[in-house]
Structure formats: C-alpha cells, structure tokens
C-alpha cells in the first residue's frame, strides 16, 4: 500500500470532509497560509476564504466563537496553533463547550473539533511543548483523541469532525513528518477504540501518541531478550477503551503505561487506577507508569532528552515489572 505522512493524513481528512459537508468551517490563526506546519495547506484554494477563516490572536474568543457557531448549525474545525495556547480559551472550553449539551438538558449540541499541536521537540520550551491531555480527559463532556499513525490521523480526524461533541484532536509535532501506510478507501476508525499495535504474551505496554513508537522500539529490544510485549495504542483517551486494555492485561499480568505528559495527574494515573480495580487478581505486578518528570518542559535539547522518556525507561519499567514477586 502507498505511504503517506501524518501531516498529509490530517490535510487529506480536512479536504475530504469539507467536500462532503458544507457546514464545516476551518478556523484559526494563519490557517489560510497552511498554519505553521502545513496542515491546512490547499484548503483555501479549494474552498475559499469563506470556509477557511483566519482569526485574530484572540484564543479566548475564537474558542467561544467556534462553540457558538457549532450550536447554531456550523461544524467548525478550529486550529489552536499550540495546545499550550488553549489555556487562554480554557473558560470557553471547560465552562461552555464541554457543558452546553448537558446543562441544556440535551437541547444543544456542540459539533466542534479543536486541533492542536502538542509535544516536546526542537527546543520550543515551556510554552510550546506541553502534553495536556489529562486536563481535557478530566473534563466531562469532551472527547480526546491522540492518533499515532498517518492513517489514524486521517481516519480519526474524520470521525472527530463527524462527531456531535467537542473533540480535542491532539497532534504530536514530532509525528508530522513520520511516514506510514495510507488509509484504505472507505476505511473508518471510530472514536473510543484502541488498537493492538504488536501482539505479545509477557507484558502489556500502553503508549500515548508518539510514545506508541517508543513502546514499539522498547518491545523490539525486549524481544531480543525473549520478552514478548504487547503494545496498545488507545488512540482515544476519552472515552477510553478500557476493555481492550484490561483483556490484554488479564492475559499478560503486567502493564506499563508510557506517556510524554507529566506523570503526576496524567492520563496514566487514570488508566492505572482503573486497571488495578478491573484486573486486581490477574496483575502479577504493580502497574508501572513512565511519564515526564514533575517539571515544566525545558528548552535545552540536552534537558529535553531527560524530560521525554525513551525506550530505555520503558524497558527499565518492564524489567521491574517482570522481576516483581507478588507475595499476596
């Protein structure tokens, strides 16, 4: 099958969905120029400036505005250049987008997709590198999607746009230029479905976003030492496909969760809390978490390396898990 890049998957999804649904509006800062990474390239040529709309640098208002448009008939796809900037639109996101459906007793729907770049890489520093999925997953009424492959980026963006809820669609900057198989025609991926990226019987490793790659690398190295790891990519973090995770853990008895966000209060905590409850008897060892340390994102490339866990840290956690001797 033909290969494509992650960024092209996103661009393709936007082009195709806009063709199918005239209510879609792509909005954001500099979107008519393709945005900083080219995700919205070609949209304005295809659909004109009435459907591809540059906004001022007014995050608080453009988030709210997208919500207002969504509850009155449009289907906006808003680009927040870096997920860090959504902090400025947090009130509109948390107090309005997430709640309007519920507060109005289901009278309003908010079919809104917010795309945002996240993740560490290239020395962008503390205001342009965060992974904030735990915040969004903590807010009832939001869906949170974090694709890893180019095909998933395309398929899940299409599903997100078609969803009648506010979806945070998190694109890791370090994945934009990665290659992978193209999405097959008519293939769809529903929100809320995890996928097993690598089958294995000895331990389950769950990776979030770019950390799926880290988990796969770790799994390869572990295989050389006779440890067969199963690697799960949850793809959607809210709602979470707990069944796939738990059934894997019930087979392997071990779980390591790897994400790039700060470990404390991260999505890994939630997964660990749920798995220990759902598979307490089957767990042969404690659920291990591998996440970023409790610090802002540093800028120096040397410090970045320490901040983002690599395959070594995952392998180390796997070894601790396998070596664990459960007495009880």
């Amino acid at each position: 099958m033909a290969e494509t890049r992650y960024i092209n998957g996103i661009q393709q999804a936007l082009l195709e969905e806009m063709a199918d649904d005239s209510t879609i509006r792509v909005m954001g800062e500099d979107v008519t120029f393709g945005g900083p990474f080219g995700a919205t390239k070609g949209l304005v040529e295809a659909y004109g400036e009435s459907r591809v709309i540059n906004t001022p640098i007014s995050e608080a208002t453009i988030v709210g505005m997208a919500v207002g448009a969504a509850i009155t008939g449009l289907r906006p796809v808003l680009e927040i250049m870096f997920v860090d900037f959504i902090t400025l639109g947090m009130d509109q996101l948390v107090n309005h987008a997430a709640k309007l459906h519920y507060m109005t007793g289901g009278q309003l729907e908010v079919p809104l997709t917010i795309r945002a770049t996240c993740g560490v890489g290239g020395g962008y520093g503390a205001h342009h590198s965060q992974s904030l999925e735990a915040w969004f997953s903590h807010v009832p009424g939001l869906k949170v999607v974090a694709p890893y492959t180019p095909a998933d980026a395309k398929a899940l963006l299409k599903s997100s746009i078609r969803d009648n809820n506010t979806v945070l669609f998190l694109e890791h900057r370090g994945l934009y230029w990665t290659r992978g198989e193209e999405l097959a025609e008519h293939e769809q991926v529903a929100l809320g479905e995890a996928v097993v990226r690598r089958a294995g019987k000895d331990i389950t490793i769950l990776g979030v976003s770019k950390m799926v790659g880290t988990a796969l690398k770790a799994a390869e190295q572990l295989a050389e030492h006779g440890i067969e790891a199963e690697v799960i990519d949850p793809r959607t973090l809210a709602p979470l496909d707990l069944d796939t995770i738990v059934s894997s853990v019930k087979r392997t008895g071990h779980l390591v969760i790897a994400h790039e966000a700060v470990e404390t209060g991260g999505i890994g905590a939630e997964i660990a809390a749920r798995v220990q409850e759902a598979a307490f008897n089957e767990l042969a060892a404690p659920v291990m978490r591998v996440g970023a340390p409790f610090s802002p994102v540093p800028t120096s490339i040397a410090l970045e390396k320490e901040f983002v866990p690599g395959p070594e840290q995952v392998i180390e956690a796997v070894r601790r898990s396998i070596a664990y001797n459960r007495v009880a």
Partner: protein
Amino acid sequence: MRTLTYGQAMVEGLRELLESDDRIHIMGQYFLGLTPQRALVGELAAEHPDRFYYPPIAELGYLGTAIGAAMTGMRPIVDLATASFMFQAWAQITEEMANIHYMSDGQTKVPMVFHFNHGIRGGGAAQHSHSPQAMLWNTPGMEIMLPSTPYDVKGLLKTAASTDNPTAWGDHVKLFMMEGEVPEEDYAIPFGVADIKREGSDVTIVATSLMVQRSLAAAGKLASEGISVEIVDPRTIVPLDEAAILESVAKTGRLVVVDECHRSCGVGAEFSAIVAEKAFGYLKSPIRRVVTEDVPIPFSPPMEEYVEPTEAKIIQAVKEVID
C-alpha cells in the same frame, strides 16, 4: 484550647500575616465566599484599607497582575472566589505563574498565594462547582494546599505565605462554619506532612478538604459496626507526603480514596496510581475511588447528590474493600 470556626481561623491567619509582613497585600474579598462568615473578611479589610485591592471582573488581568507584583517584591494573596472562574485566568496560572521560576533558572521567584473556593456548594450547577485541583496538580510549578480543619487552614496559610513559591489554596465553602480547636500562640504547619485524622487498622481512607470531614463521619458509623478506619489527610498534594499514605496502606492493606474531583484524571486517580504502584504487595483488595462522577455538575438537588461523594458511598466502598 479555644474553639474557632474555619472562617475565623482563616481570617485570623490573614490578619496576622498582614500585621507581620508589609509585603503582603490582598486582592479580592470572597475568601469566605458569599457565606455569612464573609463579614469577617470585611472587618479585616476595614482594618487594613490600604492593603486590600478590589479588582474588576477580569480574572486573567488581575491574577496576572498579582503574579507580576509577586515577581517584583510584593507577596500578594489573591482571591479568585469561585474555582470555576479560574479557567478565565488559566493561561496566567499555568503558563506564567507555574513556569517562571523554572524558565528563569530560579532567578525570578513568584511568592504568591491564590485562593479559590472549590466543590459542590449546593445549586452551583456546572459553572460554579468545580474542583480544579487535579488539573493544577498536573501542572508542575506550584504548591497546592487543601485544608480540612480550622487548625489546618491557619497553619498551612502561614507556611504558604512564607515560601517563595506560588501556592494554590483551595477551600470548600461547606467547611467555613465548622468549629475546631486553634491555639492562641503562633504556629505554622509545614507542607508535605500528612495528618492522620483518625487512626484505624482495617481500611485506609485518603482524602482532602471537605472529604476528610465526610470520611470522618463515615468512619464514626463504621466504627459502630466494628470496622476500624484510618484517615490520612495529606493536607498538601504538592508536596505530597507519599510515605504517610504508603505506611498506612502497609498497615491496613486496603485503600479507599475519597475525592471531590471528577473521576477521570482526578486527584483520586493519582492517589490510587501511586499506591497501586508503590504498595501493591500490601494490597489485599483493589483500591476503590469514591469520587464525583464524570458529568458536569447538575443543578437539580437530587441529581447533585447523586453525583457527589456521599457518606453512604464512602461506607459502601469501605465495606466493599473489606469483602
């Protein structure tokens, strides 16, 4: 020892701080929410009119103003009133306040305290009932205190105002009328030291803020059924006294986490994950969480009660972990 209400202890702490340190100024006046106790704050403001500042409804602007003032010599104590409004100031809190010290390699310090009233207060509905402490906990760069008694609020506040870090201070409106012993003499409670609010041997409960009181009530009832509950109140979650929690679980072998944040990625999730990882071998049964359900807080009273952690739910969870 004399007895004070939570509100009295808090205001006494603020008064002593204003009197002892000229750099401390107060922005905002809803430390005690809109409860009858709020008159105490009014009295304090009347005593120190030049040290109080009443900001416009511009959370982003005035919280940032406090940060800037803190960076340059003042020690502001800012009140954001209802925690839900914190989201309007979110960029200044999470991007500026929390990062500045680290980004500047420690050159610039942000010695400030910001106060919020969190939690389900009754009829607050979805936009006035937040407990945002879990989201703050996922943001390195600030200390977080969540007192549960009159003694704790005053003692923790003293420490918060004396450190060079920003401190997030969350109170629960339903605690303000609660009475408790508070010594006359000056004292401070160090951060990162948990308090065992009740000793017990069968089950550990970890809880903060109002949930400590609710857990104590539940523990009292459980005791009459012969179940002995130990209640660990970390008091601050940054820094967190992990050792105290783990020691208690090592002793009881069972844990119930009681927390008012929403379930997913809540403070309760982190407590659970820490214990599941570091005290796994001691656990006789899975950790249960008694938390607010993953729905926006509904307005209608019976619905509100349905989603929040109640005494009955705590009792049930404790019984489950014993079975």
